[in-house]
């Protein structure tokens, strides 16, 4: 992806305040590339919807500007921005049939009837809702409504589609299925998608890039694997995926490896790349459950007591207690060795230094 050439939308130093007192968006600079699937991920109240609304034209930035194809869009009203939008609760018009809902954006563009019918039919094909054209939205299941909403946002072939937690109301199976379908549609149409969710696994599976929002700022933006493997901050590391956190005092740093003494006299090692050369008073060491490997208890490994085992089918979650009060969760494959583990036994464990990230603790 050639980044600079393909920038479609540019947020520059955007701030937003609803009440003139507090900033809901603090300082947002963000480029959205043509054809990418960008997800805004963040906790509730972190400003994702606000960002989307500013982009759609329903809210205006308090400071800063938004450009599309290099031109400011502040004075372009929502109905002229040409962005499709899927709302959290779909916002299908209850007094119109599925076909009428799909024809609505075309009618608003004063497209003639025959062309309209062709496009509606194509949209119905796309989301596989044959035979439901004449139904009212209330006569559809949640997943079907979702598909109509999707088709309606795409039927007028916008360059950008905005989706605000479109799958929030669906159950787990249906959600996974729809994630796949949305992704398929994105691939086949090549449209730019800005997707809002607070579900990190959804963000990871669907996106080209994810922007993690934290209290009105972007904590980190990057590809799912970047966010997962090389989180910038402890917040991002904790927000995305499951994590173990060990708090301790950094003893020394050598060759990018930080030695941390935990309360109770144990010393563990982790990557020092996020310490930026400083040696803070306290650090958090963050390591994912699946990056910890159980070994024979030996002199060279760390050691802990197995306190619990949770059977999860293909995986087993093992709860460990270190010599001190520190606890760890480990995810291991369901194999002979892990099945032989007994609660109360002592086991050894280890990790690669590059997989454990030390972050300064303030």
């Amino acid at each position, binding site marked *: 992806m050639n980044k600079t050439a393909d920038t479609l939308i540019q947020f520059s130093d955007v701030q937003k305040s609803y009440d003139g007192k507090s900033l809901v968006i603090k300082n947002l600079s963000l480029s959205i590339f043509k054809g990418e699937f960008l997800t805004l991920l963040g906790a509730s109240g972190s400003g994702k919807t606000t960002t989307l609304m500013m982009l759609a034209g329903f809210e205006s930035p308090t400071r800063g500007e938004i450009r599309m194809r290099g031109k400011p869009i502040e004075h372009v009203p929502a109905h002229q921005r040409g962005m499709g*939008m899927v709302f959290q609760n779909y916002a299908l018009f*209850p007094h119109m049939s599925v076909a009428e809902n799909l024809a609505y954006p075309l009618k608003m563009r004063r497209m003639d009837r025959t062309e309209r019918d062709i496009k509606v039919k194509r949209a119905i094909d796309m989301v596989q809702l044959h035979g439901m054209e004449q139904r009212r939205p209330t006569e559809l299941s949640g997943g079907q409504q979702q598909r109509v909403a999707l088709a309606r946002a795409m039927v007028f072939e916008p360059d950008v589609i905005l989706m605000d937690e479109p799958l929030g109301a669906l159950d787990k199976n249906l959600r996974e299925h729809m994630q796949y379908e949305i992704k398929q549609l994105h691939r086949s149409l090549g449209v730019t998608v800005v997707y809002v969710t607070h579900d990190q696994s959804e963000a990871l599976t669907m996106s080209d890039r994810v922007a993690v929002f934290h209290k009105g700022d972007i904590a980190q933006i990057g590809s799912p694997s970047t966010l997962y493997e090389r989180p910038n901050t402890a917040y991002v590391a904790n927000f995305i995926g499951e994590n173990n956190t060990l708090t301790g005092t950094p003893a020394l740093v050598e060759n990018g490896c930080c030695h941390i003494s935990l309360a109770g006299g144990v010393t563990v090692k982790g990557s020092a790349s996020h310490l930026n050369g400083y040696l803070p008073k306290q650090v958090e060491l963050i390591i994912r459950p699946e990056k910890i490997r159980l070994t024979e208890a030996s002199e060279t490994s760390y050691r802990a007591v197995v306190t619990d085992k949770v059977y999860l089918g293909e995986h087993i979650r093992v709860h460990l207690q270190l010599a001190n009060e520190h606890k760890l969760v480990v995810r291991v494959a369901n194999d002979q060795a892990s099945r032989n583990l007994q609660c109360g036994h002592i086991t050894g464990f280890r990790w690669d230094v590059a997989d454990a990230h030390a972050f300064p603790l303030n």
Partner: protein
Amino acid sequence: MDASESLAVAHHRSSRRKRMVSVLLLLPLVSYTAVFFLLPIGMMLYRAVSNPELIDAFPRTVQALNHRSFDRDADLPEETVFKALEQDFIKATSLGVIGDAARRLNYENSGYRSLIMTTARYYRKRTQTILQAGSARERLEAVDNRWTTPVLWRDFQRASPAYTPYYLLAALDLKQTPEGIERVPAHQRVNLDLTLRTLKIASIVSLSCLILGFPLAALMVKASRTIQIVLLLAVMLPFWTSLLARTSAWIVVLQEKGLLNTLLMRLGVIDQPIALIFNSIGVYIVMVHILLPFTVLPLYNVMKGIPSHYMRASESMGGHPIRGFFYVYLPLTLTGIGSGTLLTFIVAAGYYVTPTLVGSAREQMLGYYIAFYTNTTVNWGMASALGIVLIAGVLMVYLLAARLVGIRQIAGLR
């Protein structure tokens, strides 16, 4: 087949207790409705067609006249009929019954009241004995020679059946003649105008309420919490003061030397007081004010239930807000428009106190005349017939609305 039938039977049996409970819970309401709503309406329907006066006063005559017709000019009843009539006059238990019959006969042709009353007074002093000798017909002719005109007997005959379409026809400015149903003479045609006027006033009032109420309700939905409460209270205020007090307050404001005229003259906008009350303007102003809540509250209720993201969705699809309003918002408020306007219309059509107080004779509505026939002339038949016309008129508008908007929508069921 068998299995499904037994399932139905089993289901029926298992839910019997539940049904019994619902019936019991409904019983008080059902009996209340039956006694205080259905029964009076039934009685009204009955009163509009029942015609007991002549049968009560002249039972023998009516029986003797049975099936006689007086089509030709020369036709007169036989002596037996005149004899029966004399019997009825002499044996009349009270003048009251005769008086009712006289009033009833008078509807057929004015002047019959005096005929009946004179005759009644004549026979009151007589006894059975005088009836033995001579011809009853000649005696009656001597009292009043109208007794021997066929037209009287034709009218008598028409007024005598136990049930009559007379009142219902009269309510529509129609009457029954030997030639069939005809319109009454032009100068007597008042009731149809009255009905149309009632429907017209009710329509103008409910449309005005809609025009004023729609933006108000929309504002109430959009406004901040405080403004919402203030507006809601302002709209509800008319509900909390007595109808009479409100109407009198308007008289104070609108009369010739009232607040409004004084203010306008002080400001130099006008130099002659304008007539704002005791005419149609007054009726419309006051009725719209009083009935506004009936339109606004259902509308507000429906609008509150329309999520704001519908309009946003419309905009995101390229719809200018004005087009979005007509394609999305307005259709979704149709339920509220339908039920609010209909409610206002129904209440307005039955209005009585307000037009009486602030209107002139030309603004009086059906309700006024129903009260007039009930209280002043004690003509229950006419009052009931006008009541039926009112109900039928409202029902027609209701059906029209149900046709246009849908009956579920009007009931607020979507």
